[in-house]
């Protein structure tokens, strides 16, 4: 290699080190810099006899320093590594790991979303003398070494939609999917298909994808990562990060910063430390299956050995998944079991595993994926149930399984057959009777005072206007009255300026009017207790799993105190309350996210309770309502323990829906971020009370990440309805009636009352 190229390369390495450490380890950098300058000087003077030797010496020095600094990397340094333009990106992987690839649906900036890259690729393997090309679909975010139009790997909703489209293609073709996560987070715009809703859709579909999915995480930023990260095997590059939020974002929340104020670097560093975002942390917590070791200070495009290793890991992971659900392959399984770390025993290129599955194996694959995610984060929540209670709960679980099987599966199936038959016969008889009785009816109708003359009552019903149904509104006699109704004061409606609403007296507004402005219908937010008392049948609420408590699994500094405060203030143990209740004697299971408890944020405890509620509803054949009084997103202090609830709960919901249930979501106040982008957003029946704000990111975050000002009503329920995110908007006072209507008319075939 010519001298100039090599010195240029060294200069690049130096720049990289400087960028990564951002002002630390200056003495090492200064040393390398002076050595490089000296060499350059001597080269230009021509005073070196053996250029090659001098360059090699300096390269060795670089290697040495890089190895030395490697040991001192902090989590924030790793964040800077993954964001560096010299970091490997998906195109490098396609070039070096796969034997052949074709990009699909876009070339550079000519793509619906250049930050989402999709390619059909080959891996060539040998079996004896035969060479076999194994096709895979590669999906991932492309950062493109700092290309502006790639948006730093921040994928827009339509980019995620494209990814989903091609996952389905892979499913049809029966080829494995390899996803590569290189994203700082999703691009938070609400334009259709909507950031949150599209991620939710991706998660929902990936939960049931009938081909093996292998994910490799380099930069795993929250929702954007989850959009393609739900997989059978999750690998992670050793210098990557996987987190619920960027350290800067966490610092902004921790430091309570507003309107684009910058957090102090120390605070960011500390947050990065506390969020446990590195590969080792995630491996320890179980959210990653295996770490792929990178060269010192992270892989760059010229680290060809690294690509070779990555190729082996990817092949191994795919083989493992396939053989895990396939039938009989003892020797190959043994080769795979010989763990990594030991000297490579066999080049996996020379071993062949057919990457296709039978239908039964596909079922096993999906079931395994569900089990895998269901196990995650179980220990991150504090389960304070006594052992006896746990045992009895398990007993009840088993009993419901058996009971449901006999009552609904076995018995009902036969009952249904008879019922269908009777129905058919009845319908036939009805038509026959109609024909026979027609002449007789004609005669009776012609007589004065005949049966078919319409009464005055029906005439009025058909011609006059109907009355406002006071019955459903209880004439304003609600069984729960907000404490705000006890204050003697007037309240101004926020629409007073545009709608001319007069001031309302608080006892009226929060009492009789149920928090609704009588002039314009504006809904003031109400306490969750209002719904508990006024929507469900009196005294029908039976809470379960109340002992599962929110904890502080990462030991996030100062969070224990905040959590205790929240528990004391609300009297709840977590932000999710799960209970059984009745609406007009229709029994249902409800999971309620409560806004006053840490903003209704979802952590491991909330997720666990949600999953258990979904399981319970599935077992008992009850409809399942997620009533979102309010949620601010995933609880960032729990780090990945929180973010993993997105796929986990979505999978639970999918199991429930596929079992033929009715999954309803009702938004009430502010519903944002992670939960919306997963287990709430995936519901086919999402409704909202008029007071709701629904969106992926708040106005501040949108302004900061996209630079676009958004109108003040951007997140209002009506805008969400226009965008197609929700299916309807309800008046608070009608919530009970509408829910009843929904329970009776919507949802699958396997509800106990159907």
């Amino acid at each position: 290699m010519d001298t100039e190229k090599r010195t240029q390369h060294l200069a690049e390495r130096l720049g990289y080190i400087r960028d990564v450490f951002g002002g630390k380890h200056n003495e090492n950098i200064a040393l390398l810099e002076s050595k490089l300058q000296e060499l350059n000087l001597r080269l230009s003077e021509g005073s070196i006899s053996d250029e090659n030797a001098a360059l090699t010496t300096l390269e060795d020095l670089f290697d040495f320093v890089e190895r030395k600094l490697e040991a001192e990397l902090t989590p924030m340094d790793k964040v800077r590594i993954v964001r560096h333009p010299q970091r490997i990106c998906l195109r490098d992987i396609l070039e070096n790991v796969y034997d052949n690839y074709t990009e699909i649906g876009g070339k550079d900036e000519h793509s619906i979303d250049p930050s989402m890259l999709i390619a059909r690729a080959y891996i060539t393997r040998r079996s004896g003398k035969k060479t076999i090309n194994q096709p895979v679909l590669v999906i991932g975010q492309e950062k493109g070494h700092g290309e502006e139009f790639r948006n730093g790997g921040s994928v827009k909703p339509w980019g995620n939609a494209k990814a989903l489209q091609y996952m389905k293609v892979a499913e049809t073709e029966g080829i494995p999917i390899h996803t590569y996560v290189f994203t700082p987070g999703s691009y938070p715009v609400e334009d259709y298909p909507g950031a949150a809703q599209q991620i939710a859709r991706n998660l929902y579909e990936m939960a049931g994808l009938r081909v093996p999915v292998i994910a490799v995480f380099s930069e795993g930023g929250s929702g954007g990562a989850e959009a393609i990260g739900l997989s059978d095997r999750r690998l992670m590059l050793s210098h990557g990060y996987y987190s619920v939020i960027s350290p800067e974002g966490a610092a902004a929340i921790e430091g309570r910063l507003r309107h684009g104020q910058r957090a102090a670097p120390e605070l960011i560093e500390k947050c990065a430390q506390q969020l446990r975002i590195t590969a080792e942390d995630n491996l320890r917590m179980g959210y990653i299956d295996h770490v792929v070791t990178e060269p010192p200070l992270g892989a760059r495009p010229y680290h060809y050995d690294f690509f070779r290793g990555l190729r082996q890991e990817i092949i191994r992971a795919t083989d493992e998944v396939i053989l895990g659900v396939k039938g009989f392959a003892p020797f190959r399984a043994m080769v795979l079991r010989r763990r990594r770390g030991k000297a490579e025993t066999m080049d996996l290129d020379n071993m062949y595993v057919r990457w296709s599955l039978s239908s039964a194996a596909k079922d096993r694959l999906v079931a395994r994926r569900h089990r895998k995610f269901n196990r995650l984060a179980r220990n991150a929540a504090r389960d304070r149930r006594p052992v006896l209670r746990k045992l009895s709960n398990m007993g009840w679980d088993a009993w419901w399984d058996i009971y449901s099987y006999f009552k609904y599966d076995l018995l009902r199936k036969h009952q249904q057959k008879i019922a269908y038959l009777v129905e058919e016969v009845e319908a036939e008889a009805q038509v026959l009777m109609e024909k026979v009785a027609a002449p007789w009816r004609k005669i009776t109708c012609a007589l004065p005072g005949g049966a078919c003359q319409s009464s005055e009552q029906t005439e009025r019903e058909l011609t006059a206007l109907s009355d406002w149904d006071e019955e459903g509104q209880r004439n304003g006699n609600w069984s729960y009255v907000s404490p705000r109704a006890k204050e003697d004061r007037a309240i101004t409606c926020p629409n007073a300026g545009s709608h001319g609403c007069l001031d309302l007296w608080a006892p009226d507004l929060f009492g009789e009017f149920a928090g609704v402005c009588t002039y314009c219908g504006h809904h003031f937010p109400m306490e969750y207790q209002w719904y508990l008392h006024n929507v469900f049948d009196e005294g029908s609420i039976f809470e379960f799993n109340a002992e599962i408590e929110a904890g502080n699994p990462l030991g996030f500094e100062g969070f224990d105190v905040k959590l205790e405060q929240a528990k004391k203030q609300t009297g709840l143990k977590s932000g999710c309350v799960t209970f059984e209740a009745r609406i007009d004697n229709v029994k249902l299971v409800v999971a309620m996210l409560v806004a006053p408890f840490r903003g209704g944020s979802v952590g491991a405890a909330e997720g666990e309770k949600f999953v258990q509620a979904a399981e319970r509803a599935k077992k008992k054949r009850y409809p399942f309502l997620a009533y979102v009084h309010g949620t601010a997103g995933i609880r960032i202090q729990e780090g990945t323990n929180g973010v993993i609830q997105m796929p986990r709960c979505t999978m639970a919901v999918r199991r429930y829906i596929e079992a033929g249930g009715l999954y309803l979501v009702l938004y009430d106040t502010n519903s944002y971020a992670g939960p919306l982008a997963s287990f709430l957003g995936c519901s086919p029946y999402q409704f909202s009370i008029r007071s709701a704000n629904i969106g992926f990111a708040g106005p501040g975050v949108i302004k900061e990440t996209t630079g676009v000002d958004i109108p003040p009503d951007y997140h209002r329920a009506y805008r969400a309805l226009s965008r197609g995110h929700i299916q309807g908007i309800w008046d608070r006072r009608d919530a009970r009636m509408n829910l009843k209507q929904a329970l009776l008319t919507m949802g699958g075939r396997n509800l106990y009352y159907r």
Partner: protein
Amino acid sequence: MFDITQLLDEIKASPYEEIVVTAPHTGVVTFTDVREGARVIGPSGTWKEKKGTLLATIERERNQKPIHAVEKGEVKEVLRHLEGAFVEAGTPLVRLRHFLSKDEVLAIILKKALHLFVAPERAKYYFAPDVDKKVKASGASSVSLHEGMDLFIMSRMKREASLAYSGPSGVIYAVYFQHNENVDAGQPLIGVCPPDQLSLIEDVVARVQTEWEERE
């Protein structure tokens, strides 16, 4: 026939508009520490979502309601003697002096000088074909109008009807509607002036554009 230069001089003599901020309803008034001579701003932001300067609050039934400045300008008078007093609705609280901007001055002048032909209903409007040809060839000011002349095609949901001009004869000075966009009922479509005043108006407008000093 009025003198347009005289109008401009009048505006120049007192280049502001006085805005009286009144109590929206009965209540006890508390002024903020806004002083005479202080500058205040009106609503701002892309959607006017940020409120103007807080001038006073009025409290009734323990409901504090803020009163904001509606336009930018200078505080001319704060009726301090009302501090803490119970006032009736409509009682003046603060007088603001709002200095006219270029656009506002032009709006005043053109309102007086032009005859505005307004849209009779919400629809899309197009010039009639022969008028359209003329407008495209040599500009809107080349079209001379007279009562009863076929001027527009009014299109509502693809149902079209012709619309005749009514008003004084003259030439088109300004066109206010966009091709292919709906115009609400009562919004002006064109501004018409007598042919002899055309050059004079253009002159005054040019003078305002170049000479008018916008005061904060």
